[in-house]
């Protein structure tokens, strides 16, 4: 398989520098409002600060992929004497929590690195420099392009599980 170079956008998160102000949440939600900046609401933000000041926990986490089902088990991490739930580091929009979902529709949210902006706005607004934008190049194997039907089926499998889809296809083919 051939290899291609891809620009990877990176936000370096230095949790020691975070002052817990949540400007990142505010500006993210404002940027993604429609029309742009017409409203803000941290609940719509694609970055959330996992914040527990008394225990000195400050952990900015970005919204990643949607997942239909939550993990079977959950772990805990203890780092420098501070206890974190595994979910604190997880980017998924997941049924187990209310992060990274549109508050009205429940639809999943995902960080898009503010697309056309010079750098993600959470970075611009973080004067504490807990969030720093970087770019790096990565070589990666080219993935085969999936057909439309295959993409659709893959989504259904993700949502309902392979067996259900197989059963349904079998049932549909009998009808046919």
């Amino acid at each position, binding site marked *: 398989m051939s290899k291609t170079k891809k620009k990877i956008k990176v936000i370096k998160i230095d949790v020691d520098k975070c002052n817990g*102000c949540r400007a990142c949440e505010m500006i993210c939600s404002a940027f993604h*409002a429609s029309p742009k900046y017409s*409203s803000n609401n941290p609940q*719509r933000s694609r970055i959330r600060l996992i914040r527990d*000041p008394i225990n000195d926990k400050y952990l900015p986490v970005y919204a990643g992929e949607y997942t239909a089902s939550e993990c079977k088990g959950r772990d805990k991490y203890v780092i420098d004497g501070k206890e974190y739930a595994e979910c604190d580091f997880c980017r998924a929009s997941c049924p187990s929590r209310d992060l990274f979902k549109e508050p009205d529709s429940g639809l999943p949210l995902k960080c898009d690195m503010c697309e056309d902006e010079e750098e993600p706005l959470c970075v611009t607004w973080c*004067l504490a420099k807990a969030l720093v934008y970087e770019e790096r190049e990565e070589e990666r194997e080219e993935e085969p392009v999936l057909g439309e039907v295959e993409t659709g089926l893959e989504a259904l499998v993700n949502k309902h599980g392979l067996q259900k889809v197989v059963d349904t296809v079998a049932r549909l083919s009998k009808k046919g």
Partner: protein
Amino acid sequence: MAYAETGFNLEIDLTRGNIERVATDPKLTKLYLGGLATNAKILWDRVPPEVEPFSPENLLIFGTGLLVGTPAPGCNRTIVSTISPQTGLMAYSMMGGFWAPELKYAGYDKVIFRGKSPKLVYLWIHNDKVEIRDASHLQGKGAVETQELIRQELKDPNIQVAAIGLAGENRVFTASIEQGRSSASRLGIGAVMGDKGIKAIAVRGTKDINIARPVEYLKLCSEVLKYISDREEKPVPGVMPILAGLGSPQEMLHTDEKWHTENFSWGNSRTRRKEFWTKEVEEKWTATQEGARTRLISCYNCPMKCGAIISLPGMSTYMMKCFSKLTYNMAAFVDDLEFGFRIAQRATEYGVDGFSTPQIMAFAVELWDAGILTDQDFEGCPTDNEGKFYWLLDRIVRREGIGDILADGTHWAAKKIGKGAEAYAHNNIKKHEQLPLKLGMLNPVYFLMYSTGEKSNITQIEGQFPQSPFPTMEEREEFVKDWVHVPDEKFKQYLLDWELRGEKSNPYYPTVDMSVDIVDWQEMMHYIDDGLGMCAGLSSFPLKPPYHIHNYPQFISAATGIDMNEDELSLAAKRSRTLVRAFNIRRGLTRADEKPPEDHWKKRFPELEEQLLDAYYKFKGWNNQGIPTKETLHELGMDYVGEDLEQRGILSYE
């Protein structure tokens, strides 16, 4: 659609347990902005002067500023207004933190409490769902502890909680309301909250705050952010480090306390220790502070780091800011900074004002030394300075023995104790304890601010104009170069001509008229901030802040869609200032109350002081008793105030 504000208040009747969501009058926004002024309007309309602080008819209002929760950096203040049990006048203590934006996101601009709950409760606001919940299990719990317990009980770490501690429950006149890294401390509003039977207000909001002209507004906010970033690289030369930058005085960051420890007074605001700050003290205090401070922290959407997480072995963690770092040490004559950090932890959990409370304790110790309070009053009290303060703090907060008398503050305690104790309550204005600052030469600007400030304490009135002249003309010229903040060019000349000594120095320079101008500018900016919910640390307090009279109108216009220019904004600030004044006048404030402590300056000038007051009142459009005239009130569109003052015989009929 409402812009910047939500357009709704919550009305909570604690006696009946009734909760209502009430639409506000949008016309008031242009006239009064929001925050303090609209709180004051509600108090004016609904709390007649006969109402006592601890009456069910007294209101307790938690108001957010007009721009709170919008992208404007540093706009996160809650303004809590009620009748102060200590002064009998309006208290409007404020706090930063995260509570006010959360309330806006929940869909409300204010929470207005009336009546009294028959048992201890807390209010739980979750968007449209609002309930009064039992708080009997939280009785006696610490103010910080309570915030954590409620978050656990409601199973959401993102809930913001404002809570009182034991002091508030026991109606101590210096009881605070604590929240996150901030607190609304002055004038006993925590006591009113306790009297109403409210342990805490928990808020969680997930709604939008809307902006009328989004692109324009965000551009303004981004400019402010950039300005803050640049300004932090350029501290103002020639002023002490804590005043050179932005924010509230940076006492969690800086360890150099030479200025406070040698210029402010120790004990019961008596003794200056001019040789205190030795190399040895500096090293020890620096080590203590750096050891105790785990992190510098911010309020909502603010890049400044004025607060700190304080954690010492053997005690629970808490948050601190500003001068409360030193108040206990200095009042108790304790040279070990760790004492200050430790006793402040207990005081924060109890929920007491870190300015007044140490002074009450120093006052009590002095009365004991003088034999006015006796060994019997102090039975069981340790003899060392640290021990005395811990003992007194516990007595005051629990209102036990002598603590019950001291819990009303130095003014009322002295009256009860008698035997000449009044002379020891020497550091009050309008019955309220002041910063322990005793100086030599009268400063006319500060004289006016101390005397006439409706807040009865200096820290949230001053700002913008340097506290003292720069020694050389070069420094002055350098300073005024980029001083775009002045409302008028004449202020630059005032500063350029201001000398340390000679004809053009205190107390006769700035002249009476100039002093009035300077005070008017300073308080205008504070009244605007208190209406918008902007932290004074990014606006009215520091030198050369990002927000000022020239860019504020654009912020307000773009956020709300209400067109506003500088003149209209100045008028709105004037309405606010005049309404708070009228409210206090109606409650009995007189010219005779408007004076700094007698020993505040060594050199006093009675004639000049009268001239200053006369000129200030006249400039404000008040009569020589400090009462806004009918004409002034009419010009401001506040005939309703004039008519009321007339009916009560406070203003005479034409």
